[in-house]
């Protein structure tokens, strides 16, 4: 009985613009490297004359570290027969996906009591008061449907903190903060929000919220 045919680790396809090397998503890096070296050697006879052939290296639905991707490109360009035009993958680069807004917020039903620390990976919505001595934290936005008397923190410098009644002990946005004692007296215990400005973290009355441009809220806020 004939042995079953194993799927190739590297599949080469010719196009008008040159060659595309498709790498199997199910193969290990070692398998890909060895087969790529073999295929490049086999192809050298056909492409020994003329300028280097432009090549696209297609990684499928995965990415390697930049060192490994460079190693694969070096194998392809050995001998000067191929020139890697592009390394392509059907996934978003990490730095690009980091910019995506979290699709949902964590909802916490309060009150958040003294000594408690509520953290959300994305945005945080607290339905209830945040008491003095309590801490709430979100990535880009913290919403408090109640009195914010404790500490609120958003990790992104572009983020904001909004509360129905703002008397926070500490507001932290990115790497800047505003101590509760520095919140203007006329804005305390009123609906308000905090953002990072050139002057650090500032508190504004809630009626001015719509005048700020917040990433991710496009289309949700009325135009002004």
């Amino acid at each position, binding site marked *: 009985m004939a042995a079953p045919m194993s799927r190739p680790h590297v599949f080469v396809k010719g196009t008008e613009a040159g060659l595309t090397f498709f790498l199997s998503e199910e193969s290990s890096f070692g398998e890909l490297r060895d087969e790529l070296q073999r295929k490049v050697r086999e192809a050298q006879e056909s492409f020994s004359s003329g300028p280097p052939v432009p090549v696209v290296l297609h990684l499928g639905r995965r990415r390697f570290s930049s060192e490994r991707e460079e190693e694969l490109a070096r194998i392809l360009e050995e001998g000067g027969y191929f020139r890697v035009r592009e390394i392509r993958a059907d996934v978003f680069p990490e730095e690009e996906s980091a910019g995506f807004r979290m699709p949902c917020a964590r909802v916490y039903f309060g*009150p958040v*009591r*003294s*000594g*408690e620390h509520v953290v959300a990976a994305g945005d945080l919505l607290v339905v*209830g008061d945040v*008491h*003095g*001595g309590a801490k709430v934290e979100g990535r880009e936005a913290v919403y408090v449907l109640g009195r914010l008397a404790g500490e609120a923190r958003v990790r992104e410098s572009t983020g904001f903190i909004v509360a129905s009644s703002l008397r926070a002990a500490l507001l932290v946005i990115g790497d800047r903060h505003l101590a509760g004692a520095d919140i203007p007296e006329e804005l305390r215990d009123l609906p308000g929000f905090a953002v990072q400005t050139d002057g650090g973290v500032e508190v504004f009355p809630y009626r001015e919220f719509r005048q700020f441009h917040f990433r991710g809220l496009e289309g949700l806020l009325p135009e002004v």
Partner: protein
Amino acid sequence: MGHPIVITSGKGGVGKSTTTANLGTALAMLGRRVLLVDADIGLRNLDLILGLENRIVYDLVDVAEGRVRPEQAYVRDKRMEDRLFLLPASQTKDKTAVSPEAMARLVAETGASFDFVLIDSPAGIEHGFHTAVAGAQEAIVVTTPEVSAIRDADRVIGLLEKKGIFRPRLVINRIRPHLAQKMEQVGVEEIVQILGVDLLGIVPDDEQVIRDTNQGVPTVLERRFPAAQAYRNIARRILGESVPLMRLEETPSVFTRVRRFFSRR
């Protein structure tokens, strides 16, 4: 089994032991059998407030470690016939002498013979607090109208909820009506709103409580004082009665009324 209720606060000096002694006595006056457990091991003082300090033979640690049966350690309050008993704390051990598991077992065992088991918790939120809470099914949180006491009460309410004791009830102690009227003290309504729990009662600041405490007499036995009335009201609410909150506005003295009369002229 009787209701095991922990009386706690977080902050020290707000009147936990005084409240425990007075509520226990008031419940006994209303005909219930009550056991008071002093869980403040190493800082025993519930016995002093009840005037029972010279009658202690065994204590909570002796019972928890199995040296004596619980009944051997009970100190009976003769003023209440066979209705009020104290299980005193040890004064020579520390909080780690009794584990939360041992306390839970002890309360479960002793509760069958009583209508109420009131556990006087130590201040703080460390081991002693966790031990005191271990056997309780309900909680009374005592606070005073001071921001520090309110914050600590808030912390304790959160910890009680984590332990499955939801909806603890609140006693606001040492209210000074004249300060509240002048907005120099946090008001009752604001405290209830901040803490978000049901109010069980309010107790006015009454010098008689200090005098009685030093003499080992629960104030609730002295019927004519406002604090005594407040504790009796709280006890009746614990029994499920609907009792309106006391009016704490002070009636102006004759001299004040005369002075007001002449100042208007």
